[in-house]
């Protein structure tokens, strides 16, 4: 086949193809422009924030629901903890504020959060370093024990599943003894261990 014949053949073929797909090509430019117009523009961060602050009604309701649910959860946890440890509730024996008894001793609350623990005990200078078991009756992972103590200074540590834990967040002071931490509480005026 000569070059001229090949060129003619290609030209004819292309013409035939164009003629066949004429219906698709017609109005393509308009369709492209229309589709581009339908796409939402890319927002800048400031525009995004503005939209977040003033969303549609549906989005706003969703946001309010999420914030409300989160606040309710935190309120519930706060109340649950407050019921356990703050004074003025129905369980005075579980108050962080020591309750003075007739013999001058004070009921002192020891609290240790240990979610997955099997057993928690407190050892210290008040019980000759022999464990006094803490209890978690409601299974919320907060172990407590109320121990009557006379005013003074006490060193102690918790034993959680056999492991010593000497840094009680409620302690007045911390010391090191035999290379490990111990907590210190002052019971009576000044410290109260609270």
């Amino acid at each position: 086949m000569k070059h001229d014949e090949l060129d003619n053949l290609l030209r004819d073929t292309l013409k035939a193809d164009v003629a066949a797909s004429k219906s698709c090509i017609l109005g393509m430019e308009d369709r492209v422009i229309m589709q581009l117009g339908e796409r939402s523009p890319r927002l800048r961060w400031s525009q995004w924030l503005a939209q977040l602050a003033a969303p549609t009604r549906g989005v706003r309701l969703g946001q309010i629901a999420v914030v409300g649910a989160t606040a309710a959860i935190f309120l519930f946890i706060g109340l649950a903890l407050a019921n356990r440890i703050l004074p003025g509730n129905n369980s005075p024996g579980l108050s962080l504020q020591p309750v003075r008894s007739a013999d001058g001793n004070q009921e002192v609350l020891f609290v240790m959060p240990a979610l997955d623990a099997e057993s928690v005990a407190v050892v210290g200078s008040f019980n000759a370093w022999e464990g006094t078991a803490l209890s978690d009756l409601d299974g919320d992972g907060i172990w407590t024990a109320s121990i009557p103590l006379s005013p003074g200074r006490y060193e102690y540590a918790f034993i959680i599943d056999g492991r010593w834990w000497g840094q009680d967040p409620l302690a007045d002071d911390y010391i090191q003894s035999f290379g490990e931490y111990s907590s210190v509480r002052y019971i009576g005026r000044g410290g109260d261990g609270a």
Partner: protein
Amino acid sequence: MNLRKTRVFWTFTLLLLLPILGVSAQISLMDYEQGLYSIPVSNPDFILFTIELGMTQADFPAEPLLRLIDRLASHPGAVFEKDGILIILAHALEDGLPIEGLVGKALEGLARNVSLQQIEQGLSQLLILLAETRDLFYSKGIFNAPAGAPQAVPTAIPTLRFNQLLIHVSGTIGDFLESGGSPFEGHLLYQGMHNRLTMLQGITLLPEDVELVLDRIEPSDLTQVALVAVR
């Protein structure tokens, strides 16, 4: 209430009261003797003699000491190491020093499953601190006035109060050294002593006793005591 119920009630009451009666019963020298012979210590007579001396003190920790002896008796450690711990206590008693802190330290060490040798070292340092602190008090004019003795000087403090000061000042230095503090950090030692005494002021220490110590003892004095203990 029928007869059977009455009998059950009294049986339970008696069972509940028995441990209380047992604990509150007076601890005698015989109890210590039995414990010491079950260890058995090398020189029970000396230890018993000093315990007898100590039993005359109002702040003698009778029950904790008996508990310590019992725990040592059941401890699997070497007898000479148990002996060493008890000898330190005996020396303290012989010297008229309060052993409350020493007994507590030993009980803590046993509970922590620390070696008897380590406990002995800890007690030895604490004994030095007690003795040195007492000497420091004397040198500063803070004296111990035994019960019934005439108060020769206004700064003579009854033994119970004097011993409490001794325990807390020496204890502060001991805690500081154990926590890795340097004896040369006298100002930190003083701050620790100040905090501890102030916290106990009005609880177990009289304000005038605390004031006396804080007025007369200086940071450099505490450094001197700490240096002797680590030497």
